[in-house]
């Protein structure tokens, strides 16, 4: 799946990078390089939501990044 949105860092738990998606959902970004993880950057991420995954961040579905492009 492809999701467009804005990358944000949230000071929650150990700190977590999220994608505030244009689909109205907030995803926890799993994977991705430092060029993706920039505060306020608009991106399109191609990846999969890992339905079986759980974690400490608990901000929303965990999105495993396959590819991405900066908008």
């Amino acid at each position: 799946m492809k999701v467009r949105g804005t990358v944000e860092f949230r000071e929650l738990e150990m700190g977590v990078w999220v994608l505030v998606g244009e689909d109205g959902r907030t995803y926890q970004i799993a994977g991705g390089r430092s060029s993706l993880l920039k505060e306020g950057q608009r991106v399109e991420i191609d990846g999969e939501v890992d339905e079986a995954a759980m974690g400490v961040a608990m901000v929303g579905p965990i999105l495993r990044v396959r590819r991405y492009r900066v908008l």
Partner: protein
Amino acid sequence: MRSVWCLLGVLSLAAACAPQPARTKVTAPGTPGASAVPHALVVDFRDGTPAEVVAERARQWGLSLRLNSVEGVRSGIAIAEEVDDVDAALTRIRREADVEEAEPLVRMEALAFTPNDPEFPKQWNLRMLHMPEAWERSRGKGVVVAVIDTGIAYEDRGDFVQVPDLAGAHFAAGYDFVHDTEHPNDDNGHGTHVAGTIAQRTNNGVGVAGVAFEARLMPLKVLDRAGIGNSADIADAIRWAVDHGAKVLNLSLGGPGYSAVMERAVAYARTKGAVVVCAAGNAGTGQVSYPAAYAGAVAVGAVGPDGQLAPYSSWGEALDLIAPGGNTRLGPGNGILQATIDRTDFRKPVLAEYQGTSMATPHVAGVAALLFAAGARTPDEVEKALFQGAASEAGAWTPRAGHGRLDALGALEALGKAGLPVDWAPLIWSAALLALLLLSLRVKVRPGFLNVLLNPATLLPLLLSTVGLWFLKLLWQRFVGHPPAAAEVLSLPIPDWERILFGRGRLASPLMYSALLPGIAALVALRWRALRPVVAGLSLGFAGFLLYAAWAKAPGIAYLPFTFLARPWLVLNGVLAALLCRSMLRREAGR
């Protein structure tokens, strides 16, 4: 005679309505924390005794008596020190007509344990729980608390280090489900922080304190270095923990996805006698994440130092409690401070301040350990004490606070007060209601109060619908072992059956909490008249149960659009059930 019984019924209703005595915080003489001051006594003169009279008496008794304070002029309270023989002096003083009371002077000390950890003053979260007072009663000695997380920095091994403020803490053997080894060390920092809140080494002159610092930590690693894991490992760890003696499970983790496997694991832990405490989630929405949302888990939301729900904390129908999780938007010092390892270099111990429902959860797990160590035997008892002891502004369950804010002292006091696990109030309300209903009937068709009440056909359904066969579960536990589901269900009042059968969380079903069942029974009784005493007992029980629930601000009712509709709903159905009962009684008598 009949009206006497009616009167007694009304009086018992009044007694049930009477306000509960306020929780006393004053330490009485003779209790620990109060000690007699040597060679000193206190005399309470009659109010308005002039100072000259006090001085005159002092001369007579040979004591240096002085009024205690400026208030002493009005209250007549005076103290004497350097008294050689306090007992003899008291015997003499008590004989005087202008003395109301005389006794040894007692020094009151607040019962509190203040640890010497240098950063303890920054732990607002522990003061919010009244930990210094609670530590005088329990420190969680020996209770095994499983931390199902990223591991714990508990040993020096290879690149891994033990956090200095965990040196000397107690550990049970754990497991690493991510790498399948017996060394669940932490490569993230989250699990160590959480473990610190539960059982940081305390009063060791180093770092910070923990809630249940005499408990034993069981490290179970299910999350990788990024703090992510899968439901299979977590479900395995839950079962592993209880099979290896854990009584409290801390799961500061979650996700939006439902997993039947994990739900069964939580239920298994519960049947094995363990309390499962889970984080409500950090999405800040009205949907509690899993596993917190499963029936049988205690779901914990987070508050900041102001006691308000933190903006990130999730809430909703499944929420049980709120506890300190920090709110760093209020500035530095408003997070939860514990010893852990650096999040960028796991070889480096640090004191770190984090916020999240993960941080709130171990406070509840720690207090659960205190309760087990203080004598709680079952998860039910622990939960009941946690909920009853919580500080609640609403006085009832709400979706944004659950049963209220965690309070360790309150929970321990609630555990001490817990008698038989049964609330008699609905039965008393039913008996009083019966008296009122009988009074409303004409004398010719009015049966006797005791004739109705002691008729087995009426009494059994009445008991079942108000208090349940509460003794069944107790007897089963004592003589057989873990009670089967049927015994659990029969131990509850009928309106609560649905909540066990379907595990719909903490909200009651509006169909069970209504006059529906008595109504159906009444329809059946139209055909079979012999059933009338049974239906009378059932509807009387429902009426008492529902009206008491309304009065006591009972649990919220599910599916109703607004929570404020719950009480009108209960009152309406309570009255309907009472009218059903009245018609059953009258026809029975008029036959």
